[in-house]
């Protein structure tokens, strides 16, 4: 009657599937929004979230405490965002919408990173701010999103980023300063030269 034996792993699989599905229903949208803010690309954001849940599913048996699954998922999503960001050219290659926002003019009709709805909602100011955020080094951007989008404390942000509290403070401060420059000072936009 071997075929009637219950395989513990299969039982675990059912449990994992049920739990992960429930977690998905509860947290997928908020995590996707976090990834969207980080990446500026809805499709990529959803991919990152899907991958995070898939990773959790694969490791469910090794999760000592299911209660930490939501925070584990957030860390997974952040890591996924870092990986996705690394796949892009550094700093310099910007879409029309970002350049237009930085220049304070209307973007062209080709909005490669935003939906039409997003374009309406954001307005010029939001677009400029988002464009500035996306020009930040990845860790600064991450610190900014965790601190001001998720409203995490410095301590929680440090835990999520796996860096020291001082680093969070420094990264956040420099990010705010850099965003301020990009939004305000003319020479903080894309520059074509410097003084001699």
């Amino acid at each position: 009657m071997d075929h009637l034996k219950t395989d513990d792993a299969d039982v675990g699989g059912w449990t994992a599937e049920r739990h992960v599905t429930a977690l998905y229903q509860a947290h997928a949208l908020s995590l996707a929004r976090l990834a969207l803010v980080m990446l500026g690309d809805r499709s990529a954001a959803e991919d990152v979230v899907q991958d995070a849940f898939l990773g959790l599913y694969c490791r469910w048996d090794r999760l000592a405490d299911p209660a930490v699954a939501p925070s584990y998922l957030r860390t997974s999503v952040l890591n996924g965002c870092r990986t996705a960001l690394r796949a892009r050219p550094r700093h310099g290659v910007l879409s029309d919408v970002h350049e237009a926002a930085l220049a304070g003019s209307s973007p062209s009709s080709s909005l490669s990173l935003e939906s039409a709805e997003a374009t309406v909602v954001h307005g010029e100011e939001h677009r400029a701010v988002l464009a500035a955020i996306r020009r930040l080094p990845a860790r600064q951007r991450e610190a900014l999103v965790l601190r001001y989008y998720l409203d995490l404390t410095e301590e929680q942000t440090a835990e999520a980023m796996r860096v020291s509290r001082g680093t969070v403070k420094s990264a956040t401060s420099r990010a705010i300063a850099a965003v301020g420059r990009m939004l305000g000072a003319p020479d903080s936009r894309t520059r074509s030269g410097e003084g001699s």
Partner: protein
Amino acid sequence: MNPIEDQVRAATRAEASTLREVRPLRLPPDAAAHRVARSRVAVRWPRRWQGWLAPVAAAAVVIALAISLVTIRDNSNGPVVPPTGPVPAAAGVPEYYVTLYTPPQPATPTPTATGGSAPCIALAPGKPECRPASPTDLLVGDTFTGAKVSVVSPPKGTSFYGVTGAADDRTFVVDTDTTPGVSDVCQPRTFYLLKIAPGSSSPAQLTRLGVPPLSCIAAIALSGSGRELAVALLGKGSALEQLRIYSVASGQLLHSWSTRNSSVFDQGADLGNDENRGVSWVDGDRELAFPTFLLVRGAKVPGRNQWDFTEQETVRMLDVSAGGSDLIKDSRVVWSTSSPTTNNYPPGCQWGFDPMVSADGKTVVCVSVNAPATAQLKKVVPWRLSWLAYSVSAPKAPPRTLYEVTVDAPLSSSEQLAQLWINASGSTVIGARGSGFDLEKPAFFGAISGGAVRSLPVPPDVIFGAPPAIAW
């Protein structure tokens, strides 16, 4: 609340609100098979991985396997894992360092006014539910043995924030954050002189300096003689970027230069606290070297609404005895480099990471993290990790490689280098290398001299997600 913070909060939330649904979760059949297979294998991960759970999405297993297959090739001298031992005396590595240090805290919930616990988030199994915030101390350590010489607590209600050292390895200037818990580089810092006397009954002595509290600090640098403190200030609002020199003895402002050119100083790629590598004293404290970082837009990418950019980096030299007040006009470029952004990890100096200038003014030392251009993140590629030295007298000449290793690792891994200290001639470097996803401890921390490397004990609190706030 800073208006920029408000704008960031509003913009990110507005963008997030545009996403109102996500596609259904699909667990492919092979994922279930994979999960079952893993459950039957007693995999014992190294301790440092247990709390982290290797969470890089669906690619995690592939990447983890790839990491386990990482190989390191030593291209220049010495073994892959350098022997621990004394650095040759000629290298002149200082005996003591001062670093920011957060003592280990008990994992106890933070009590609140209502008697409950502050809301905290556990991020991994085994992690404490909450850690109370604690001030950052200073640790004086022995470079070669790792022994703690002294731990210095900050004045009540403050945390130490930055540290910079003179050439004598006994004199340091540190600053404190007077408003712990507030994320703003423009909160005022208060400066102190730290004199260390290892082996004495008073191994560390802290004295308040007369330098006024300063805000928006980009970098600090104590002169080799310990008599002058250079402070680079970020522009904010109508304020300009500034470079100031204060007398350590009197706190008096001796010189000040400013500019509207915001490409000066650290642009934020380094995440150190009050960066002590962003400004260098050279030539017997007669000149100050500082970097500029610039993105220059190039051609439009054919068929796409994108442009290529070139990353430019320079080192400028300022004669502090010549007077003047314009940071750009009164300084000169002594070294420059540029690279296109078409490759994520191009050869040459890593853009945005402060190059260091030797005290004799003849050498610029930087780190290079170079990997082939490919869009395949999971592909294992050779990472060439180097500490490079450029001659200021021949700035266009190829750099001298002080040390280089090649690491075979996925492109998605996070290979990082840092240079933390260089000697007066630029021939000896204290550096660190972070590897893969384990950003907590460096894969290498040690001294590089004459093409050889020697491991040094890793100071506590050196987290390699960012260059550590440490000074010699």
